[in-house]
């Protein structure tokens, strides 16, 4: 119970000087009945509030997760898996349309059709990363390791493999905040269950190569092609690099890995 408090401004003399001070006066403490009444009123207010929650179905915030997968809306600030931003949106859309058409023509599902595509349009994997390694420095858990290389065309540092360890990541978002190039985001998925934790260490970039604007400055498509090199999800100089561990059987690759090895399987499935 808050006592009645009055605040007034007054001029008072301090060492011959007139100073403006705030004078706070406390009122009489409320009587027993008043306290009791306000306590009961508070309890009733609380009851009324919860009854409102109980009564109105729109107050329910629970989402039925596995059922609403198709329409699941995550909030803007949700921190999911770390992933690269792929700013070449037109190429992304073209690819999606192409896969859809292919699936339609071959009368298969889209993911089967996607497996069939051998000559991918690499331009949709252009990225913003320069391989500066700021994210690696910012990471408190050392979950990021950026391997860089000397580019052949631009003769400058560029990202080779961007390795992210989901198994030790705590989703603090520090890497995203540290990135000067807006290359990564924490808006990826959250369905990360795997049967082998080695699969939780993988490359985020699909192309080794310079930042997208350096590529787009180049007019010649042949040179553009030579500037970048394909990188897949599991592979390269990754610690515990996905599947190659001595004394342990190799890991079955998930279908969404970009390994070329799945192509034969996909074809077998089709026929």
């Amino acid at each position, binding site marked *: 119970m808050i006592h009645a408090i009055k605040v007034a401004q007054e001029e008072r003399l301090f060492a011959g000087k007139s100073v403006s001070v705030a004078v706070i006066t406390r009122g009489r403490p409320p009587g027993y009945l008043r306290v*009791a009444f306000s306590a009961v009123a508070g*309890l009733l207010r*609380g*009851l009324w*509030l*919860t*009854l409102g*929650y*109980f009564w109105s179905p729109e*107050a*329910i*915030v*629970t989402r*039925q997760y596995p059922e609403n997968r198709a329409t699941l809306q995550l909030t803007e600030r949700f921190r999911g898996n770390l992933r690269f931003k792929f700013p070449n949106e037109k190429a992304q859309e073209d690819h999606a349309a192409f896969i859809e058409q292919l699936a339609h023509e071959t009368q298969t599902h889209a993911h089967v059709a996607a497996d069939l595509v051998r000559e991918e349009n690499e331009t949709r994997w252009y990225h913003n990363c320069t391989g500066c390694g700021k994210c690696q420095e910012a990471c408190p858990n050392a979950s990021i390791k950026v391997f860089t290389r000397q580019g052949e065309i631009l003769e400058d540092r560029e990202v080779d493999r961007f390795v992210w360890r989901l198994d030790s990541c705590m989703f603090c978002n520090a890497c995203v905040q540290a990135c000067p190039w807006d290359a990564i985001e924490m808006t990826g998925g959250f369905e990360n269950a795997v049967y082998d934790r080695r699969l939780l260490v993988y490359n985020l970039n699909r192309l080794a190569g310079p930042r997208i604007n350096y590529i787009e400055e180049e007019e010649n498509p042949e040179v553009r092609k030579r500037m970048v090199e394909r990188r897949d999800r599991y592979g390269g100089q990754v610690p515990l690099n996905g599947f190659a561990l001595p004394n342990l059987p190799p890991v079955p690759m998930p279908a969404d890995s970009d390994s070329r090895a799945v192509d034969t399987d996909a074809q077998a499935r089709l026929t």
Partner: protein
Amino acid sequence: MQFVHTIAAAAATNSTWAPQTLAQRAADSAPHSLWLTAGYFLLAVVGVAALLSFLGMALIYIERKIAAHFQCRLGPTRVGPFGLFQTLADTLKLVFKEDFVPPKADRSLHMLAPFLALLVPVVLLALIPYSPNVQVADLNIGILFITAIGGFGVMGILIAGWSSNNKWSMIGAMRAGAQIISYELSATLALLVVVLFSGTMSLTGIVLSQQDGWWIWRGHAAGFVAFLIYVVASTAELNRTPFDIPEGESELTAGFHTEYSGLRFAFFFLAEFINMFTVSALTATLFLGGWMPFHVGDWAGFNAAMDTIPPGIWFLTKTSMVIFVIMWFRWTFPRLRVDQLMHLEWKVLLPLGFANLFVAAVVVLTELYPYPLAK
């Protein structure tokens, strides 16, 4: 006392309500057929056991659903339609869990305590008049018996806390003991008001005395204040939030049942929920007319319409409403501190209860009722 005779006369003249308990039937049939007597006895035992298990399941499900909706959630939805089988699944889980007894515990007492805790609500279930013809036994000292047995419930908790050989359990049990014994006083004072009004201690007698109006409003303010005191005090006796300091998850892990697991923990859990039902049923019986339909003065048509609803439904509706209010309290109010709890009982509820009893006595002696009994 003139008043008591009036009620007895009113009960006698009404041919609609001729309550008959199972005990009465058994006693009546004893001279003719012992088998019938045994059958009534068996029916009572099976009925109470069935009610016990059904209530346990149903109340836990209802509590979870109500709690969820008070907290903007959905509650159990996965197991069975609307999550109806969730409690069944949880019970199965509890049955198959290890029955752990701490090595340094007082083993026999540790095993005994859950049964003692469950004993009280089971006995009380047999006394409640669910409907004119559905009641196991109607004692002429019903209220006294209920108060005595209700006080016995704390023994299970105290023994559980003592025998667990755990400081949390011990503190929780001691708190429970202090709390239940304190609030027993207020609850009893509130019950005495109804006894004063109705002039009988038998539960069926109390229900019959409310034929012309329930005691919550027929007894002027005294009935209503007694109702409020009884609801608050019995919530405290139930160890439910806002009076759940004996469990006090944030300070005592689980209070007196910290060291219990599996089925023995389930017994405490069940006892708590059955206690909630018995308290709600008693509140409905004493203050809200029990199975008596809702009647308004001289409105014959309205009263006849109300009479078409079976008394069992009336009882169930009233009891569920009280249960809902108790659950509503639990999911709205924060927990009291120990000193606040004692303050509320000894400095607020108890003086209020005594004053209320005095007012009720004056009302009864002067027969100052808002409207008299139907002659």
